[in-house]
């Protein structure tokens, strides 16, 4: 069961100018894992996700989703961008943003109808934001905005979720709410890939981890590879994380 590969990355190399941001990444992500991508600032964590999703054009390499090229499998993939990547003063409501998650399956020109609205309301309920559906998005707190982004991805009803730092700048209660949703997704057999900063919570939240610093350092089950050796290799200094066991 565990052996189905959901995402396969081959020889992925990305450069912004002259310096490579990602170098020759090979990665296999098994279906049904909740995976953290960790690494220092500038390690290329967000870049890796963006390159996999075709937002950035890689210099070399290929990505396949369940054995087929990503372009043919888009509907299986949902993306939660960094909260800070959009202007939250945009004139729209929470419900409207979540509805955008249905645009992909609608395709060009077709407008969202009752079915799409119902799906969006359900997603809002899942993230505990139903009461805020009509709220102008600039009037939401950082944690609430993050939940809206999460709901927008949930509406897509994808098999694989890519999330770029969903815990950044949210309070403790939102963090718990979000991780519970991610764990529920895994339980439902979905694959969830998260760019993560807080090393302390990796063993508690995730069952799979990838160490990244321009090159891939290691990838595998948290219980096998989340150790001082890999942390030191990734972060360059003698990094000690006390894992209580």
């Amino acid at each position, binding site marked *: 069961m565990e052996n189905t590969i959901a995402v396969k990355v081959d020889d992925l190399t990305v450069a912004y100018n002259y310096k490579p941001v990602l170098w020759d990444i090979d990665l296999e992500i098994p279906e049904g894992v909740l995976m953290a991508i960790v690494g220092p600032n500038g390690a290329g964590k967000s870049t890796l996700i963006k390159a996999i999703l*075709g937002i950035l054009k890689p210099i070399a390499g290929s990505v396949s989703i369940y054995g087929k090229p990503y372009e043919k499998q888009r509907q299986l993939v949902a*993306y939660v961008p960094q909260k800070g990547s959009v202007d939250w003063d945009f*004139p729209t409501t929470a419900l409207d943003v979540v509805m*955008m998650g249905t*645009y992909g399956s609608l395709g*060009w*020109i*077709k407008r969202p109808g009752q079915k799409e609205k119902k799906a969006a309301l359900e997603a809002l309920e899942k993230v505990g934001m139903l009461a805020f559906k009509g709220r102008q998005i600039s009037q939401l707190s950082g944690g609430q905005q993050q939940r809206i982004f999460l709901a927008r991805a949930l509406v897509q009803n994808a098999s694989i979720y890519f999330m770029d730092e969903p815990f950044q700048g949210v*309070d403790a209660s939102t963090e718990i709410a979000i991780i519970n949703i991610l764990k529920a997704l895994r339980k439902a057999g979905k694959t969830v890939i998260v760019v993560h900063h807080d090393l302390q919570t990796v063993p508690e939240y995730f069952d799979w981890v990838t160490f990244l610093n321009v090159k891939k350092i290691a990838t595998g089950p948290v219980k096998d590879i989340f150790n001082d050796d890999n942390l030191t290799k990734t972060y360059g200094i003698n990094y000690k994380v006390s894992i209580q066991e």
Partner: protein
Amino acid sequence: MRFLLSQEFVDIKEYIELVFTDYTLRTITLGTAILGAVTGMLGSFAVLRKQSLLGDAISHAALPGIAIAFLITGAKDTNTLLLGALVSGLIGTFWIRGIVTKTHLKSDTALGLILSLFFGFGMLLLTFIQKQPNANQAGLDKYLFGQAATLVESDVWTMAIVTGICLLVMLTFWKEFKILLFDADYTKTLGFNTKTIDILITSFIVLAIVLGLQTVGVVLMSAMLLAPAAAARQWTNSLSVMVLLAAIFGAFSGVFGTAISASQNNLSTGPVIVLVASVFVAFSFIFSPSRGLLFKQIRFIKNRRDLELHKTLAFMYNIAETHEDISHPHAIKLLNNFQGYTRSTLQKLVDKDYVKIDGNMWSLTERGFETASNLYTKQSTEDE
């Protein structure tokens, strides 16, 4: 005074009659109204994409196109000249994009560069044309500040058709426009070709700018794009309402601007239209209920006062709490220990029936005690 007012009233009535009967005035009014509507509509997209300066660069970049079109054809046919403007405006736009994507330069640098380069070249060509013996050359410089009086019926038809197409495309691709404006990266992951949507929006912005060159001119054209949209943003939190409002503000700017310039001799129409649009902006910035400066300030002051009042009440609550009997009187002197205390806040608390005063003693009422204790619980739950 009274006489003057009624005199003006008659003038306005006469003017409105004139708009419907006088051919020239009707053409110009209709033209500027349509122009204002279409630029306001498309300007909303430019403002929300944070591409406010793009309009300025495009309109300036159109100038050499006008000059070159004249040099090639030797005639001053409006449509030919505007076609030239369209081509050079588009070239300018693509150069700006090229500079931003291919070099380290930021977009404001690229915009400034293209704007001055094209405008400078355009001015050079204009002076060159003026030195030519061709008698036809006079009046090309009207494209600098525009001249609404040169509008003829066919120009208005061109504007109306372009506006109609633009409206149709906008309604068709509304969903795509909206999501691209909000979150371009995400749009890409949904499988939309963001480049196509982007080119569609930008092309229409260029088209609208070119349409306005004859009326408002190269230098002021970007204001037509930005002012109605900036004003509209103040009044609504919905994209569709914003676009609609911007179109209305733009159209009214056109109509009022034309009226003012027509009734006051020798005022050139383009700048007056832009000034009217600016009045819309200023009014909206100050008086919008949710985002305007005035109400923001009023809310700010009111919040501060409420907070002061609550703080004082909380301080009194702390004192009253030490006694078993909550309405036990205490000396007003005690309140001087509290920094935010003033006589007027005390009076306000009395007015609200939270506090009773007896001589120089005060005591909390039942209501005041309840409100104060609620303040505490409210604060601790609001912290999430």
